[in-house]
């Protein structure tokens, strides 16, 4: 199948692209007090990053100049030096570029892309995901992350459960000879699966994935760890970039307008936690609005208007 190509892109550029989306996710950091630098970490690459469907608020769709809906198998043109199959398209044996999805046709430089309307999450290394533990044994947990298969979280990759903090040499066995300590004290990591239980929901990052094996996760890192309280909601995976907005603009907007905190995971799961239930409910409505109107222009302004007018009602 085809890969995503950027302007003048080659396969080597694809990792950069992945970074870009990962950084988008980073910019919606949850615990700002704890990780003040994560905001900056997210910003820098975004400004240099290539324009992508998700990042574009007004510009991208206008630039491509099309809102044409295409269907699977539709011929989008003949493959040539100036027209190459990009994301969601493939060249057939006759040399025609055909669409693989029902979606929007988008031209990006030399590449023809089709942005699907719906789809299941495919894990990518570095993605932050929200998953529910469905099974556990002595050495690992299995998580449902909306992917075609369950994801594995090994006890050694689970950190201490203390969000974002990893202590080396602390905790664990005290006293004893250095040899004994080295053997049993794995840098503060717990080597059993007592921290989480079946049914817990956690934020994790994809460590490894190729499609022949189950994805491996880790909870060591900023933002990662168990979720307590708040709401979880699902939205369509292709609409995630729109909810994040250009350089995380939509998330920032929602975070500033309401007192809620919002975490958007790449696998189509959103975690909302606020102080007032009314505000949480408003945020859920706002997110549904974004999902339903994801293909439209000027969405940020409309969402802003919507949330501002609704917030007045909440306060009264």
């Amino acid at each position, binding site marked *: 199948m085809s890969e995503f190509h950027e302007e003048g892109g080659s396969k080597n550029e694809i990792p950069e692209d992945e970074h870009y989306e990962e950084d988008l996710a980073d910019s919606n950091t949850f615990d700002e007090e704890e990780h003040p630098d994560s905001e900056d970490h997210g910003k820098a690459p975004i400004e240099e990053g290539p324009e992508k469907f998700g990042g574009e608020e007004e510009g991208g769709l206008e630039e491509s100049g099309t*809102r044409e*809906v295409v269907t*699977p*198998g539709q011929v989008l043109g003949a493959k040539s030096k100036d027209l190459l199959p990009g994301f969601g398209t493939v060249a057939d044996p006759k040399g025609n570029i055909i669409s693989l*999805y*029902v979606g929007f046709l988008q031209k990006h430089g030399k590449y023809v892309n089709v942005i699907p309307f719906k789809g*299941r999450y495919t894990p990518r290394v570095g993605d932050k995901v929200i998953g529910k533990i469905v099974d556990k044994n002595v050495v690992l947990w299995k998580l449902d992350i909306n992917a075609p298969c369950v994801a594995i979280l090994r006890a050694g990759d689970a950190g201490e459960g203390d969000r974002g903090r990893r202590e080396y040499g602390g905790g664990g066995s005290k006293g004893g000879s250095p040899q004994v300590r080295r053997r049993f004290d794995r840098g503060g990591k717990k080597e059993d699966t007592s921290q989480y239980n079946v049914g817990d929901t956690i934020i994790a990052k994809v460590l490894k994935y190729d499609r022949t094996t189950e994805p491996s996760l880790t909870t060591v890192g900023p933002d990662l760890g168990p979720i307590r309280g708040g709401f979880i909601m699902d939205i369509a995976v292709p609409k995630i970039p729109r909810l994040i907005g250009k350089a995380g603009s939509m998330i920032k907007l929602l975070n500033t307008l309401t007192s809620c905190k919002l975490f958007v995971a790449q696998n189509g799961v959103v975690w909302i936690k606020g102080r007032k239930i009314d505000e949480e409910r408003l945020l859920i409505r706002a997110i549904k609005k974004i999902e339903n*109107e994801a293909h439209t222009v000027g969405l940020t302004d409309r969402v802003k208007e919507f949330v501002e007018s609704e917030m007045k009602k909440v306060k009264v």
Partner: protein
Amino acid sequence: MPLLPEGHPEKIFREDGLRLDGRKPDDLRDIRLEIGVLKNADGSAMICHGKNRIIAGAYGPREVHPRHLAQSDTGILQVQYRMSTFSVGERKTPVPGRREKEISMVVQHALEPVLFLEQYPNSTIDIFIQVMTADGGTRCASITAAALALADMGIPMRDLVTGVAVGKINNKPILDLADYEDKWEEGAADMPVAVMMNEKKITLLQLDGQVSIDEYEQMLNLALKGAERIYELQKEALKKKYTSELVGGR
């Protein structure tokens, strides 16, 4: 008394040469396609083809149950075709019969070529087809609906698959047989065809009856002509569904 009048008409063509429902030999029945009819399915579609009412729901890619069916090198497509007890004149037993198992398999084989199953090792894509009312040509209508359900699910597909039945009655090739035409026995043959229209590749071809090579070619051309028209309807239905969502969003 059965709800639908059963029985065999004495003649199969009217005196003016048209079929009993007023169609020309190369006319299709009325077809209406609807996308996204099942809220909880990943993708779904309904087809109203003549009196046929068929709903298809697609799920996945997801884990395979039972696990021993999973293949480590490729994903699998599982299709379940079921007829409702009330879908035919005489009550149909709810136990899946030989015919339903055959059609499930045939639909699965007709749809597999458009999917990139190798992308989903150890996973399955499930399609459930429920026939609410049957009126001849359900396997073809099922394929048409199931292809739309897959497209609605957002899974990469090379093309849509279009199913259409052709046959002959009194040695005359006709397109899109209705139930009573299917049951006619004089000089009759029945040939369900499924095509990937873009590349004109045939993914299903069954033949029940005896035909000469000339007749076979005539019938196949007729089927391709009919499939072309259904393919347009399929594309239109998909575009309409998502364009209307778009307009609603504004």
